[in-house]
């Protein structure tokens, strides 16, 4: 009984907050900005509260950090975008000729 009441209360608080806080559309923009600058106290409070009641935006933030981490890890180990990535034989020879002429 008490558990049920607690759930109901929690649900009401969430609903009440969701109607008053910045929307998801505004929040995802803030999440991105939080990776670029320090947010003001008001912005931080709104973001924290929004994330508390919205698992979608929680995931969104987590995903942006996964993207950042994976991307940065590739900085020194660039991926092969095209099959057999590397210089084509033709380009390699062109550069070789250019370098020999320079020497």
């Amino acid at each position, binding site marked *: 009984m008490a558990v049920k009441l607690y759930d109901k209360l929690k649900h009401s608080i969430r609903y009440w907050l969701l109607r008053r806080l910045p929307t998801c*559309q505004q929040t995802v923009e803030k999440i*991105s900005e939080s990776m670029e600058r320090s947010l003001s106290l008001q912005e931080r409070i709104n973001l924290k509260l929004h994330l508390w009641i919205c698992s979608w935006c929680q995931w969104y933030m987590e995903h942006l950090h*996964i*993207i950042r981490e994976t991307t*940065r890890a590739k900085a020194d180990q660039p991926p092969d*975008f095209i099959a057999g*990535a590397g210089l084509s034989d033709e380009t390699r020879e062109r550069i070789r000729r250019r370098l*020999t002429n320079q020497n």
Partner: protein
Amino acid sequence: MNAPQGKFLDESPDAGRWLDDHGDYLFKYAVFRLRDNTAAEDAVQETFLAALKAYKEFQGRASERTWLVGILKHKIVDHFRRAMREAPLGEGSDEGPEHREFFERPEPWQGHWNNNYAPNEWHATPAELIERSDFWKVYNDCLSPLPQRTASAFTLREVDGLKSEEICEILSIKVNNLWVMLHRARLHLRNCLELNWFRREQ
């Protein structure tokens, strides 16, 4: 008596071997950032030419590859700077898709996630993704539809971790433009990865 340093300086650089040892790596390094094969080839060639000229200053102070990558970085930034000067950011120009469709329009939930686009849990860690070459293919395809400047801003920020001021200077934009571009690039890329990679993997 020959001083060892003098002997080192007399050695002529072997540019052909540089090309064999580092050419592919430098090319991939440049393609990842420039997202354009021709521009990447040019950057690699310019790097070797500059390296030939600067060889005397190098003197084996760093590893050969680190030294060459250092030169390539400058060539890549030069390319961005040149490309952006030729196409200045005008009024109302494209910073990337807004993706309004990701969010609800009608009340009472206006501005909240639309069910079809709402983020879902990703069952993967960065460590796993880094090794998956098919993931990087999808990643690359997802960045392709973005306007060039937006993709470049994203690359400079997320791949190389440059500061806002440096990126703004290179791309000739204001910091507010940069934030909008980064936000749109992330919004687009995240959704595209979820649709084309994470949902398919499960």
